[in-house]
């Protein structure tokens, strides 16, 4: 046996993106490239690649311990549905890419993992993990809005020659099938009951209020949620109403305009006049 070759192969499986996949898809071809003796080759053939992949997932999971407090419900549901290692094994390559540069910050790790998870869950039947997408969106927007509040430079108002509707401070909107508060309660009481939780569609707004220095979670009606979801800092008031009308064609433009007006009155969003208009 060649210990260097064995340790090197395990390390490479755990550290080099794609190598584990290549081994899985063409083990004999890859072994030919290693130039190891027959005994080592026979031993390597018996390696449980799926388990090595999961072990890589465990390593990435442990290396995210400092980020969990930012998305506790998401983590709890991943655990509850027995998906933690599979998700982190799937994330492993992207995590390794992140590690290639300087030591990543907690924010960089959080952002990278949450973005990955959102994409990953797109390809999974939601019935296999009820509420997971919803708590992910909920916790991601809560964290991102809080982060925007902490970094005011990110929100500099850019002067424009046209009228625009802009979020006052920081804002995100989510349309959720399961209410995150229901999931939090279920996890607190009996985590095994989460899978049987009934959907409760809801619209939530995540409003980072600079003056209060907090993130308020607002229960919204469908009309207000649609209008606020169309406030992108670029559209004018009329364009926001038009975009919201595409989302909710059954609601009249007047009602949508009234919802926008109310949001302006509540100081959630503001209408910025064009430069030189006064």
């Amino acid at each position, binding site marked *: *046996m060649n210990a260097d070759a064995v340790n090197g192969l395990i*390390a490479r499986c755990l550290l080099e993106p794609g190598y584990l996949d290549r081994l899985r898809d063409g083990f004999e071809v890859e072994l030919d490239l290693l130039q190891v003796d027959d005994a080592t080759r026979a031993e390597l053939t*018996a390696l449980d690649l799926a388990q090595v992949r999961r072990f890589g997932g465990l390593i990435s999971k442990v290396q995210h311990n400092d980020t*969990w407090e930012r998305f*506790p419900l998401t983590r709890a549901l991943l655990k509850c549905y027995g998906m*933690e*290692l599979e998700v982190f094994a799937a994330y492993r390559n992207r995590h390794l890419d992140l590690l*290639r540069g300087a030591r990543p910050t907690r924010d960089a790790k959080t952002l990278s993992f949450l973005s990955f998870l959102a994409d990953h869950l797109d390809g999974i039947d939601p019935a296999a993990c009820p509420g997971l997408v919803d708590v992910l969106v909920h916790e991601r927007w809560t964290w991102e809005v809080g982060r925007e509040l902490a970094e005011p430079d990110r929100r500099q108002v850019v002067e424009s020659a046209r009228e625009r509707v802009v979020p006052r401070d920081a804002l995100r909107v989510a349309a959720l099938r399961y209410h995150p508060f229901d999931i939090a309660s279920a996890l607190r009481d009996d985590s095994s009951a989460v899978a049987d939780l009934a959907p409760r569609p809801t619209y939530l707004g995540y409003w980072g209020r600079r003056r209060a220095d907090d993130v308020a979670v607002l229960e919204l009606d469908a009309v207000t949620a649609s209008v606020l979801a169309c406030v992108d800092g670029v559209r004018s008031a009329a364009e926001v109403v038009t975009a919201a009308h595409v989302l909710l064609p059954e609601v009249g433009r007047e009602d949508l305009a009234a919802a926008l007006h109310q949001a302006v009155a509540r100081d959630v969003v503001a209408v910025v006049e064009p430069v030189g208009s006064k």
Partner: protein
Amino acid sequence: MPDRTPPCAPRLGIARSPSTARFLERHPDAVDYVEVPFELLRHDATAVEVMRAKPVVLHCASLSLAGTVPADAGTVREIREWADRTRTPWLGEHLSFITAEREPGWGSADAYAPGEPWNIGYTVSPALNQENVDRVVGSLERAQAEFEIPLLVENPPVYFRMPGSTMSQVDFIAEVCARSGVQLLLDLAHFYITARTAGFDPFTELLRLPLERVVEVHVSGVTTEQDTFWDNHSGRAPQEELDLLAVVLARTRVDAVTLEYNWSSRLPEQVLLQEIGRVRDVLDEAHAA
């Protein structure tokens, strides 16, 4: 810190986490010491401030004792400096490898560190065979010469059979101990996981370990996913671990038992207190017997 004067009961400690300082403020008498990893101190020296509240036991995962690439001189020097600064009574290190040689001609596409050894950043159980027994004995001899305090080796968790393994983990550890004279840090979660992976009865195999060499014991959680048991420092220990602890304490006198619940800053304080209580009950019962 623990001395070896009988009839002292084992000291009880916790692994350092971000919530440890607050926990110790609120429960100053809950534990006797705090275990701190060298790798944390290396990146965040402020972690040593816990010494103001409790003595520190230094833990390490950087020496790659079972690997073909030894830790570099700078790393060894840093460990020694932290050992001196923390006045740790011993240094616990994994019986694992963390670095590995890049085989020339493997055509690695990894260009970020050409010529550098692989650094996994996590400890991996080696192939359990005679060649690696020899390697570990040699590594221990060289490593021990660098430190004035004793090295303890910790049994790693086995999640898959390493190619080239020809012996059980217990036989591997027993031979390393017999030939090197090294003492043990027995991680009961790792032992339980290895038993599940390899399919042996942990209670039977435990008795074949050189238990008289156990100085420190680790207790932590275990989780199951994809039909495998995995290390989990953010959940409660299974009852089997505490039963194994009782078996160990009935046969030998250990100096310290460390609860490793350091993977989640959100672990409820009440849960940690309950876990401390469970372990302390086992210690008290063993001490009274």
